[in-house]
């Protein structure tokens, strides 16, 4: 392996995800990041752990995705000076992760952007809520929040401040546009208005119940997060679920992808003033969700994936019902795709809007669905397929235009592919037990779950305590990578096109602010 020339021992981690682990020094960390960046690897996540109760220091964890899978790096830091090397010059997505870790743990890089990211004056600057000695129920008095936005100056430049509260029922986020006339010169996002303390809350959960909270990290990605959590836990326990359970998980995940793509396709039509698209796609999505409710007991199956298997089964009649519903759905989506493609007004809004070139996508580390519309081939279901995707043969969808039209086209193609996968799963569903009993999880070992959710790769990092609780759980949503790219997508576009561009990414506010 390439990194072995640095003399670091890299060992594979047990579990369904393709993960290698190494404990590194600060210089090695930087060196490996440089090598991974040069080899077209990407940053998956950066997070910290408070280990002062065990050995008096902090840990920084960096997960890099390369052609072998996930490379997990652990960097010990002292309690007195928890500093680590800045990697944001290699991976721009690291900026916000590094700022968030400073807000939550007080671990910091030398230099770089020092503004708070998740801390909205809801807690004082010298308080770090994710440290183990910080009581979870402390309430601090509200302070004035003076966040220094970057100002653009010049003749005729003015600012439009939007949000955090919007006119529609959507999640809160603040967008600061610097514009000349209708043209956008710069957009600066400010997120972090939905801080719920999920990562702290995990620490009070029994490890075999944490999937319930993981499923609620970002409601539209419930199956992917709960699967990733269970994958991490099963890795720690050294147990793999039965094939039937894995196939059912894949069925739920593909239905989640399908439901979100249908919702987005309708919303994209609506944001271009084409209400007919919204109505038709909403109907299809609603049918899908109601079928979920009838067959799996919940519209969004949040508690369907359990450690060791699944909580839901599929009877023969249910299987037939799902199979029979696929053909009409495929046909209706194909008809609507034709309408979208032939509608000159819609195409005029979609084509060329919010373009992210392949070169920019590489540079910024664009992931998932939006990445695949900008020539970034990454799809965990194809690159590092876990069961049952290794048996299903997922066809990768990849486009290079990088505009709203391309993201719409990727959604249409992935929706069709998801339906094909659903058919394969329903036709080939193996028999077997739904749940297998799990061993006790390994203590103080890292467990990783890595699943391709509908937005992109979802990762969960998990550590167990000796008394059956969660020591640390860090769920990572691909929106971390893609939100900063949105700031670039709007540059040079006009203000009224922002909602459309934003919707074409449809990133999670909750998933990046736990």
């Amino acid at each position, binding site marked *: 392996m390439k990194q072995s020339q640095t003399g670091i021992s890299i060992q594979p981690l047990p579990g369904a995800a393709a993960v290698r682990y190494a404990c590194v020094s600060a210089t090695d960390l930087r060196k490996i990041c440089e090598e991974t960046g040069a080899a077209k690897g990407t940053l998956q996540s950066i997070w910290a752990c408070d280990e002062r109760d065990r050995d008096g220091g902090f840990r920084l964890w960096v997960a890099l995705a390369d052609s072998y899978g996930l490379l997990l790096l652990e960097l010990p830091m002292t309690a007195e000076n928890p500093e680590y090397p800045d990697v944001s010059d290699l991976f721009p997505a690291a900026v916000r992760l590094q700022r968030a870790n400073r807000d939550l743990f007080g671990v910091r890089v030398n230099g770089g952007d020092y503004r708070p990211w998740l801390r909205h004056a809801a807690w004082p600057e010298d308080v770090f809520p994710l440290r183990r000695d910080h009581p979870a129920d402390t309430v601090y008095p509200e302070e004035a929040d003076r966040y220094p936005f970057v100002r653009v100056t010049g003749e005729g430049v*003015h*600012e*439009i*401040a*939007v949000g955090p509260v*919007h*006119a*529609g029922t959507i999640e809160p986020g603040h967008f600061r546009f610097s514009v000349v006339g*209708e043209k956008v010169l710069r957009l600066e996002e400010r997120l972090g208005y939905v801080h719920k303390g999920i990562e702290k809350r995990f620490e009070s959960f029994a490890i075999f119940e944490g999937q319930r909270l993981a499923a609620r990290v970002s409601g539209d990605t419930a199956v992917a997060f709960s699967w990733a959590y269970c994958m991490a836990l099963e890795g720690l326990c050294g147990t793999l679920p039965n094939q039937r359970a894995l196939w059912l998980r894949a069925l739920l995940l593909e239905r989640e992808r399908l439901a979100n793509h249908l919702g987005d396709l309708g919303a994209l*039509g609506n*944001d*271009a*003033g*084409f*209400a*007919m698209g919204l*109505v*038709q796609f909403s*109907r299809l999505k609603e049918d899908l969700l109601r079928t979920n409710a009838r067959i799996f007991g919940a519209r969004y199956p949040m508690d369907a994936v359990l450690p060791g298997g699944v909580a839901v089964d599929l009877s023969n009649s249910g299987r037939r019902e799902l199979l029979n519903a696929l053909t009409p759905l495929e046909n209706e989506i194909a008809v609507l795709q034709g309408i979208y493609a032939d*509608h000159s*007004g*819609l195409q*005029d*809004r979609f084509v060329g809007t919010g373009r992210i070139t392949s070169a920019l996508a590489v540079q910024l580390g664009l992931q998932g669905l939006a990445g695949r519309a900008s020539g970034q081939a990454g799809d965990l279901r194809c690159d590092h397929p876990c069961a049952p995707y290794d048996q299903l043969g997922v066809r990768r969808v990849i486009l290079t235009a990088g505009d709203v039209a391309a993201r719409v086209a990727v959604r249409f193609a992935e929706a069709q592919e998801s339906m094909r996968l659903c058919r394969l799963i329903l036709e080939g569903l193996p028999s077997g037990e739904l749940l297998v009993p799990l061993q006790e999880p390994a203590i103080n070992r890292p467990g990783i779950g890595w699943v391709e959710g509908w937005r992109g790769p979802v990762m969960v990092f998990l550590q167990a305590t000796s008394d059956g609780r969660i020591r640390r759980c860090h769920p990572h949503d691909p929106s971390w990578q893609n939100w900063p790219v949105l700031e670039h997508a709007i540059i040079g576009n*006009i*203000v*009224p*096109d*922002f*909602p459309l561009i934003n919707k074409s990414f449809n990133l999670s506010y909750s998933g990046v602010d736990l």
Partner: protein
Amino acid sequence: MGTVTLTAVLAQGTATVMAVLAAPLLLGWLNQCRAWLQNRSGPGLLQPYRQIRKLFHKDAVIASNASPLFRLVPYVELASMALAAAIIPTLWTRLPFAIAADSIALVGLFAMSRLFLALAAMDIGTAFGSLGARREMLVGFLAEPALLMVFFTTSLIAHSTSLPTIADGFAHQPFVLYPSLAFACVAFLMVLLAENARIPVDNPTTHLELTMIHEATVLEYSARHLALIEWSAALKLFNYVCIGLALFLPWGLAERPTDPTGLLLAVPALLLKLAVTGSGLALIETLNAKMRIFRAPEFLATAFLLAMLGLLVRLLLGS
């Protein structure tokens, strides 16, 4: 014009009050048709009335830095639209008010109401108000010349700029096909869509602040002020449709208020024409997407060009 009699004054009053009261019904019908065309059941014809009633029952919230102009504008809006309704022939053509203002004054009246709306939008000083005012004026200053050209074309045919006289002339003369009117009609339809913030120029149902044109100007209004604004917007749509009907489909209009039999035809004729036009507008809105805002000038330039062609056809070919 005949002498002003008590009957005429009564008829004038009836026509104006009827327009003000019935205007939300047209909007309700349009929205209902849109819902049907989108396979939805729809909120019902009376939804705009329910909305207005709901808003009248709420407490108004006004920004602390609002000037008296901000409070005044909703009343100015409704009053100017009611005045316009008094000039536009809906049931009768020869009403006492008709001589007060001609079609050119009507364009001025619409411009004035837009000016006040833009001033009110900028009054609070929010980014969205100014944004909306800027966009509203962009659409307005491009739509006005096209509307004037439409009126010039019809005036050349009828030899009068007075709307009732034009309508009278078209309604009561032997049926003649004017190619120039076809151009003017299409141009007027485009102006109507732009001026009333309908798709494809604006989206009246959007919640996306950044894309709004008309809605952005009234974001700061609430309660009774918003009710008046919404009511006047409904009345504006009603007025525009009635102008279109008077110019291009004037048949069925009663001539004098003294003739009661004329009304027997005029009322059902108006209802039928409004229903057909409303569903036609709904169809246009359903089939189209909202265009990018910088396409609006092209759209309105096309309207102007068509109206101009109509005028030239009339002037040069005499048809």
